[in-house]
């Protein structure tokens, strides 16, 4: 009788162990990991470009960064350079630039489809829908009634862009979401992919970054880079101290 119990117990334990082993071996999240300590990566403004134009004049170098946190969250902060108004005024005549563009027609062709409920007549709601859709917060844009009414009229070309315009110093956006890191095989070996936001478990993210290291003398520098092909956006970042 004792022997029989022993055999039964042994086999049951075997079944349990085997099941756990097999289950853990096919656990989808097993290869995902996160940074051990919060790590901030600042934009290399000269090496980051959109349509081959470097970011250097447009972004605030200290306030624009990507931060990977040990709690599985990611923050992306993109803030305009404080002196951007003067620089834009030096290079672009806004009213001339807007002359050939039918903003109202283009807005109506895309915005209400991308974010149903969006309307040039209600920029406050439109901004809220945009932020909720993309998990972002906009900074530097107040949507007080007078301002939005004026902006709405400008976009509809009912009034010209004011000559004395000033882009707010804290204009920008922040994204707060989740990420994971996974080592993936490429034709040059294993690389660390940083996958941003939710996605189908059988696919991957729209936004994928790559963590890598660069040797500089005796030091090893931690780098992060990503590209968004359709925007011709190439971003390179270097790990910096969190202030």
């Amino acid at each position, binding site marked *: 009788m004792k022997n029989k119990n022993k055999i039964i117990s042994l086999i049951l334990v075997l079944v349990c162990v085997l099941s756990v082993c097999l289950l853990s071996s096919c656990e989808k999240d097993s290869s995902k990991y996160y940074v051990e300590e919060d790590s901030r990566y600042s934009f290399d403004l000269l090496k980051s470009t959109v349509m081959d134009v470097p970011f250097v004049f447009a972004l605030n170098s200290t306030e624009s960064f990507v931060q990977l946190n040990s709690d599985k969250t990611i923050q992306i902060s993109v803030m305009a350079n404080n002196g951007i108004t003067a620089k834009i005024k030096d290079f672009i005549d806004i009213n001339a630039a807007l002359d050939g563009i039918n903003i109202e027609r283009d807005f109506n062709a895309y915005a209400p489809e991308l974010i149903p409920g969006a309307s040039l007549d209600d920029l406050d709601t439109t901004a809220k829908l945009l932020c909720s859709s993309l998990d972002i917060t906009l900074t530097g844009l107040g949507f007080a009634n007078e301002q939005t009414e004026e902006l709405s009229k400008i976009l509809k070309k009912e009034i010209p862009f004011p000559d004395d315009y000033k882009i707010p110093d804290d204009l920008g956006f922040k994204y707060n979401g989740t990420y994971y890191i996974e080592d993936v095989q490429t034709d040059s070996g294993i690389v660390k992919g940083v996958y941003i936001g939710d996605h189908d478990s059988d696919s991957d993210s729209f936004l994928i970054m790559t963590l890598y290291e660069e040797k500089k003398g005796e030091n090893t520098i931690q780098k992060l880079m990503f*590209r968004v092909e359709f925007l011709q956006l190439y971003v390179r970042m270097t790990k910096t101290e969190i202030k």
Partner: protein
Amino acid sequence: MKKKAICLLLCLILAVSSTLVFSGCSNSEKLQIVYLGDSIAEALLGPSPIVERDRYGYFAVLGKDNDYYFYNRSVSGHQTAQLLEVISRDDQGAQRTATLIKTADILHISIIGNDLLQRNVGEMVIDLMNEDTEYVDNILDTSYSNICKIIAKLKELNPTATIIMQTVYNPIYADSTLFNKSTREYLTQEGIGSDQYREIGKLLINRMNDVLKKYKENYPNDIDLIDINKAFDDISVADATRGENLIYSDWVHPSNEGHAVIADTTQTRLEELGLADHKKALKNYKTLRSEQLEDLFSDSVDIKAVKKQIKKADSCSEVTNIYFRAIDGKTPVYIEGENK
């Protein structure tokens, strides 16, 4: 005797549990599909709202329906020359397009539309009406040459993958912005009304699709060509309003329903090729649309009745028709409490 029976029983339990655990996580039979090409495949413009891209874009619908691993590496705005450049690159970090191409079972390509549609469509249609084909044919000669190079490169990277290409649908209707003011004025002078725009638009669209058909004729074993243009046109002929609803509000990209029609048409072919299982895909598709009904339209649609209809459907295209007729004119609630 008892001991033997117990041992036998326990061995059976062991075998069954092991099989169940294995089958629960077996990935060996999953196929990998990689999407390449332009904005039609990238589906940034088309799905509405954009947060539903992963449930409306055909790349995701086919991926989910068939339980494939699916990776979308198409790029909005790309023409044949740019696709050739993308697939000729080594991997760019974790994006690993080259590796994904090499390991794919199916390569699905949407390309050539931008070779012509990024230009003055109206002028080209007028040229073709006047039997002046030189400008268009010069462009399409280059397109053909690029497509030959694209397929050769893909076959070099992955000789065993099934390569699927699709024809470009005709997006031109009476209100299409692809015909600008001067085109419309010219056509009016010629006695051509806006109700005929779709027909004359075919001169350009068919000429473009002939390039893909020529490739298929010359190299029948290299690609599978799915006639999305015919699928859209058949719907348009049967029901002009529904046909027009397959096009997004920018008059270029496929709408949510347009994406669904592309997915359904492709699904049929994948099943014919033995790369998809009808029963499984239909079940998954019914689940997908039923979930969307509940998530997006619970306030405006009789969910229970529509889900019942969906449950009875025999094909993905029937599910598509039921779903999109049910939500026609309804605004999705995609952000709680904010866009009601």
